[in-house]
């Protein structure tokens, strides 16, 4: 498997790796994937009072492309409202990281992780 330089960069220097405490104000968590499928992504967002995502964290069990996809979305969701974050599509992630066809599912999973985190936030805060 040969990786693009961008994948390698995210793999070597993951952005925003780690976890927020679940109890922290404004934190929501999305966990997608399954160990048996070879990838599990956990994406956390921290939403400010103004509804803007102030910060994000990820942890990923998966191949280099899965790690890079989740690292990338933590950068992309920052500064966006929840609705704006939901406009991030897997095709953009795949294009940015130059993912080969067999690794497209990693970008799909990253998009799913954003949706799961946003859903979690809305559920916690009684939004629809």
């Amino acid at each position: 498997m040969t990786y693009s330089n961008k994948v390698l960069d995210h793999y070597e220097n993951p952005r925003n790796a780690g976890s927020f405490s679940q109890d922290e104000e404004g934190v929501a968590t999305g966990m997608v994937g399954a160990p048996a499928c070879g990838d599990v992504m956990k994406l956390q967002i921290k939403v400010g009072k103004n509804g803007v995502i102030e910060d994000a964290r990820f942890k990923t069990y998966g191949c280099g492309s899965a790690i890079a996809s989740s690292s990338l979305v933590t950068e992309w969701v920052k500064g966006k409202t929840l609705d704006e974050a939901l406009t991030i599509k897997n095709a953009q992630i795949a294009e940015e990281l130059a993912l080969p066809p067999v690794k497209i599912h990693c970008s799909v999973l990253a998009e799913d992780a954003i949706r799961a985190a946003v859903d979690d936030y809305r559920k916690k805060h009684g939004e629809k």
Partner: protein
Amino acid sequence: MLKLPIYLDYSATTPVDPAVAQAMIPWLTEHFGNPASRSHAFGWEAEAAVEKAREQVAALVGADPREIIWTSGATESDNLAIKGAAHFHQEKGRHLITVKTEHKAVLDTVRELEREGFEATYLDVQKNGLINLDVFRAALRPDTTVVSVMLANNEIGVIQPIEEIGAICREKGIVFHVDAAQATGKVDINLAKLPVDLMSFSAHKTYGPKGIGALYVRRKPRARIEAQIHGGGHERGLRSGTLPTHQIVGMGEAFRLARETMADELPRIRALRDHLLAGISSIDAITVNGDMAHRIPHNLNVSFAYVEGESLMMAIKDIAVSSGSACTSASLEPSYVLRALGLDDELAHSSIRFTLGRFTTLDEVNHAVDVLRRGVGKLRDLSPLWEMAQAGIDLNTVQWAAH
């Protein structure tokens, strides 16, 4: 100064020992004769070299030189032995027994015979990779003609109870074939005593060149096989084709060296392997695959839980090893050998085979330990599974979002 990447994949292949390469060269340039040429000195000297090599190979395994047939490698030897014996005895019976953890050269050969109408039993192994003799006995049928069991496993290095299996086969008049490609120079083999009828060898796993191997065919009691390659009637009609003198000389020299150096080399390699295991034992949640007592000293196969196989290979790219994962091999399935031990797919994918050899140094092993500690540590810091496991969550109880 360490040269990177560090080669810890000696079970894939070994470098040709410099002494072996030296011995081979004259047989390519100066002494190029065809060993089958009976009418001049070019042929005679080549034939003498081939016969000397035959003695050297026979000496390592306690055989008579007349029991050694040259082939292109262990894959061909396995094909010749299993197809040759199954075809020869097909009037007597058409049932074969082998093991799920055998090399593909054996498994695919047996599969091919199944397509021809033979029946086959593929034995399960125990969790430690070894055959249970009771399971083996229960699989025997009146029409069983050939049993094939490897001596040392290529992935997990375990040594099967060949002597016991052979004794049972001998008692029942069943042909017993053993793939010993991963065993020469690593285990004492004495065919004068072992109840084995056919045994496959390879040169390139024992510091010889690729493209040459041998099949041992017992004389007393005589093992009968049918040739698979026909032509000039070389090798007593069992394997036609002009003999590659330089390759044969290389295999002979490699096996001579193995015989001479084994006593010193095995304890040294075992100490390095144990040092490697001790070094990575400080990493949490690892499992060693395969029995440690019945095992060649060169092999260590370890699973690293909570890290994914492909990223693990990325993290340890400074060491050349084999993985139980699909991503580094042509197939999409995780290792069938590890799965036969009962490992689930995830653990099989995050497994690594380390195989050490003649030129492995302590510095290399120490560096490999560092690389592994750092790599596994980094990936676990990134792993949500590790985080959950540390928090005491049983991952089997988690409802995963399917995708």
